[in-house]
């Protein structure tokens, strides 16, 4: 019975964006964006800087209010709700538990002055955990999962390398078992070798936990590695969309062809 329920849940959209648009005065940051995201699905939003992809991510995660259009999200009780209609408590629940948000700069997503263990444990306390031993145990196992030496659990992320900080940010986000994770250029500031390790880690975790994710990236290699589907944005609009390997191996739009042909061979 439990299995039947999960199958039914997976057939129902988790998030539906309808005609989303955001204007800053006369400037259009993004417009006419509509798509449906299913549970367990990873969507990459690609395009160069200024294409509107970061604005879109903020609209989808209720950090910006759209000028028009709306975002519907299926809450844990199965009811599809317009994000704009949610009360403060419901929004807080999404931010603290049901969603993760991985920033390009880990310093934005972490508290740099408190220990790594507290960075992970804090999200658990926010959802009502109060047993110190259990919190520490869970934090430790998450550090292991993201390949951070647990001997470093009491150090602050200030003493961590860029790659370790990013892995800690991921642990902090995933510890509450969110259903949807937003990622904004998650490998942006990292060395190539550190990037490969992080991507491998994210790919494995997303698959194991059955997470849905929306990943904004300008790096098509990241999109190929992580995502099932791709949306290509240019000047605030979605110009091409499809299965990731379709769009990257058989790009149709001039701009997508330009992006794909600009990848350096490995």
């Amino acid at each position: 019975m439990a299995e039947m329920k999960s199958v039914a849940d997976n057939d129902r959209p988790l998030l539906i964006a309808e005609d989303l648009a955001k204007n800053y005065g006369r400037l259009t940051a993004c417009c006419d964006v509509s798509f449906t995201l299913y549970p367990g699905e990873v969507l990459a939003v690609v395009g160069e800087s200024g294409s509107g992809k970061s604005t879109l991510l903020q609209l989808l995660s209720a950090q910006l209010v759209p000028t028009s259009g709306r975002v519907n999200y299926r809450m844990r009780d199965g009811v599809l709700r317009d994000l704009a209609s949610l009360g403060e408590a419901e929004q807080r629940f999404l931010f603290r538990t049901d969603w993760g948000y991985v920033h390009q700069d880990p310093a934005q997503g972490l508290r740099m002055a408190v220990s790594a263990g507290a960075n992970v444990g804090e999200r658990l306390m926010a959802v009502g955990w109060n047993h110190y031993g259990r919190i520490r145990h869970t934090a430790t196992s998450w550090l292991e999962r993201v390949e951070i030496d647990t001997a470093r659990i009491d150090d602050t992320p200030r003493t961590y390398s860029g790659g370790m900080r990013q892995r800690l940010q991921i642990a902090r986000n995933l510890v509450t078992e969110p259903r949807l994770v937003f990622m904004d250029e998650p490998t942006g500031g990292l060395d190539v070798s550190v990037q490969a390790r992080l991507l491998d880690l994210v790919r494995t975790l997303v698959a194991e936990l059955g997470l849905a994710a929306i990943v904004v990236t300008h790096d098509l290699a990241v999109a190929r590695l992580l995502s099932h589907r791709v949306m290509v944005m240019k000047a605030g609009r979605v110009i091409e969309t499809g299965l990731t390997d379709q769009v990257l191996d058989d790009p149709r739009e001039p701009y997508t062809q330009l992006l794909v042909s600009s990848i350096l061979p490995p």
Partner: protein
Amino acid sequence: MPAMIEITNAEKTFTMHLQGGVKLPVVRDVSFDVSAGECVALAGPSGAGKSSILKMIFGNYRCDDGRIGIRHEGKWLDLVKAEPCRILGVRRSTIGYVSQFLRAVPRVATIDVVAEPLIATGLARETARGKAAQLLQRLNISERLWRLPPSTFSGGEQQRVNIARGFISDHPILLLDEPTASLDAANRKIVVDLIAEKKRAGVAIVAIVHDDEVRRAIADRIVDVTSFAAAA
């Protein structure tokens, strides 16, 4: 045996926008069927569109026109019109594809590269690894290589890893793009045997094979791709 693939008037053209919008017709009026337990070999000179047709059947290349019917979980599905999530479902449980070159994720061990399609269908990791080990052994990939990522392997080793990955699932449809191209005689024979086993198990196979001997050994029927040539 029932048909598993039904292709009707499929058509593909590339439009190269960066080269002034040049249109590169690839194939047109592609029509053929493949039944369960049957191996159809695509024949034709290099550049005739053989690999493109395989990619169209896998949903990797989009069709401009026509129909690509796939029997997926007992029902016909037109891949040309299918939603992306349906195509992913078809790849998970119905169509396996052995590409010409292995495209693996950096850092992932060979045994996991091979086991991944099974894990994706929900099988336990250790069970999937056990099956992967059997196949790698059969394909003569030395056990000391299993924990290493395949990126540093020789061409022939990479191809055998790719074959193991494609053959590990019990998909009812298999697409093979030059599966024996860089293999020695002994390994070619093993792959021919593996293909024969798949056919006996009722798998519908579409293959591109240049080696005449291998083609004679596996193909029940030959489809000449030059008849689908799109006039430039």
